[in-house]
């Protein structure tokens, strides 16, 4: 039976990237019934919200979606479609695996880390004010509930996937109340997972250690702002946003996405690397229980890279569709 999955084709290069994923999934004989839902610039141009309520409702009903990059319109009152989806679907866990890939040269051989970023609180709760004409005030909202569920998700992931170490990342030496609550919660929950080595680290030190001692890290969990920054740092260590996948999980829904932008200047040029969306798609397959298809696609991708077939961002000259077809041919 086909898996029904909501699909947002996105803005800019989004539709081209989705086309590449469709090519590869078809070659892998993955039985997906894509249900296209509206979001992004087209909605705004039609006078609708950037993420219409019908789209939220449809993703909720299906419980799963794949999202290509979307553009946040510039201007007062504009909201990010990505943050809107995370908030409205309560997708509290942003999971960003980063790992070394053949043919993607970086100084970080042997990289294999999974980052858990809390996705709904912290300074992203959108509670900001001008308190006086010259003073801005942003509320950093950290709840025990929000900390507990992301920290537990990280430990559960580690337990399920045979990961040995979980590190809680914070700045509790300075923000003793907000990050202190995160740290206190981390220290409480880690006691429930005695088989997993767990310790905490201050975010600035963690950034330094990521680029000097990356091989000792396994799973990292952190509040929203640090997660936003550290996960992009880690994506760079993997080879850039063009290759790094992303997933957002809630209790009832999961949404898989490439975390890079919609690259409007490349629209229609058949140029941009589809790997990030494709690998997000394989995370989606894992979520659907299609582990064999996931392994097959990732194997075909590695074989393609090993042959030196790459898009421009990795030093190659393959087009978006050409790269997808090369992967597809490995699957046949």
């Amino acid at each position: 039976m086909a898996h029904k999955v909501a699909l947002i084709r996105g803005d800019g290069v989004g539709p081209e990237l989705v086309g590449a994923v469709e090519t590869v999934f078809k070659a892998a004989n993955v039985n997906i019934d894509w249900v296209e839902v509206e979001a992004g610039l087209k909605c705004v141009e039609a006078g609708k919200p950037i993420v219409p309520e019908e789209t939220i409702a449809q993703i909720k009903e299906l419980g799963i979606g794949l999202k290509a990059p979307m553009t946040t319109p510039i201007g007062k009152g504009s909201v990010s479609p990505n943050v809107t989806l995370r908030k409205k679907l309560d997708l509290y866990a942003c999971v960003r695996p980063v790992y070394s890939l053949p043919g993607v040269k970086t100084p970080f051989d042997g990289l294999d880390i999974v980052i858990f970023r809390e996705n709904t609180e912290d300074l992203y709760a959108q509670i900001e004010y001008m308190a006086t004409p010259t003073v801005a005030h942003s509320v950093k909202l950290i709840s025990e509930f929000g900390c507990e569920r992301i920290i537990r998700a990280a430990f559960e992931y580690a337990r399920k996937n045979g990961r040995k170490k979980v590190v809680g990342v914070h700045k509790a030496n300075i923000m003793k109340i907000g990050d202190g609550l995160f740290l206190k919660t981390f220290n409480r929950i880690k006691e429930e997972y005695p088989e997993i080595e767990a310790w905490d680290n201050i975010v600035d030190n963690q950034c330094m250690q990521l680029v000097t001692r990356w091989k000792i890290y396994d799973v990292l969990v952190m509040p929203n702002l640090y997660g936003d920054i550290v996960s992009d740092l880690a994506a760079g260590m993997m080879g850039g946003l063009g290759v790094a996948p992303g997933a957002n999980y809630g209790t009832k829904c999961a949404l898989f996405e490439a975390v890079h932008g919609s690259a409007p200047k490349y629209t229609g040029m058949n140029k941009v690397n589809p790997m990030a969306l494709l690998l997000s798609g394989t995370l989606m397959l894992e979520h659907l229980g299609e582990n064999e298809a996931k392994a097959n696609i990732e194997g075909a991708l590695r074989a393609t890279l090993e042959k030196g077939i790459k898009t421009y961002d990795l030093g190659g000259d393959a087009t978006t569709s050409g790269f997808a077809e090369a992967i597809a041919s490995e699957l046949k």
Partner: protein
Amino acid sequence: MTLHGVDIFIWSAETPDVPKEFGPFTLDLISNRGTRIYPGPAPEMDLLDWPRCRYLCEEEVTHDQIDELVNKITSLGYRWTKCQKLFRIDGVNAFSQPY
């Protein structure tokens, strides 16, 4: 900078049943964890015991009017833990909108 309303953060496990109108103010929204839950449709999400009630007035209001509104909320039995006055600068809201 002109005064137009107030955000009242209330310590309550339930979404508070606060007045929709009071004096010059209208209840613009209630949010929880930065996400709007009133007016609906409210997302299906776990709520914290710290809802925020935003009251606004299109016209400029006085600080005394804000005090009266906050006292009204207190008199209804709600325990607020934080209030933030809402200003406009050159006619533009100097406060963020929830999702």
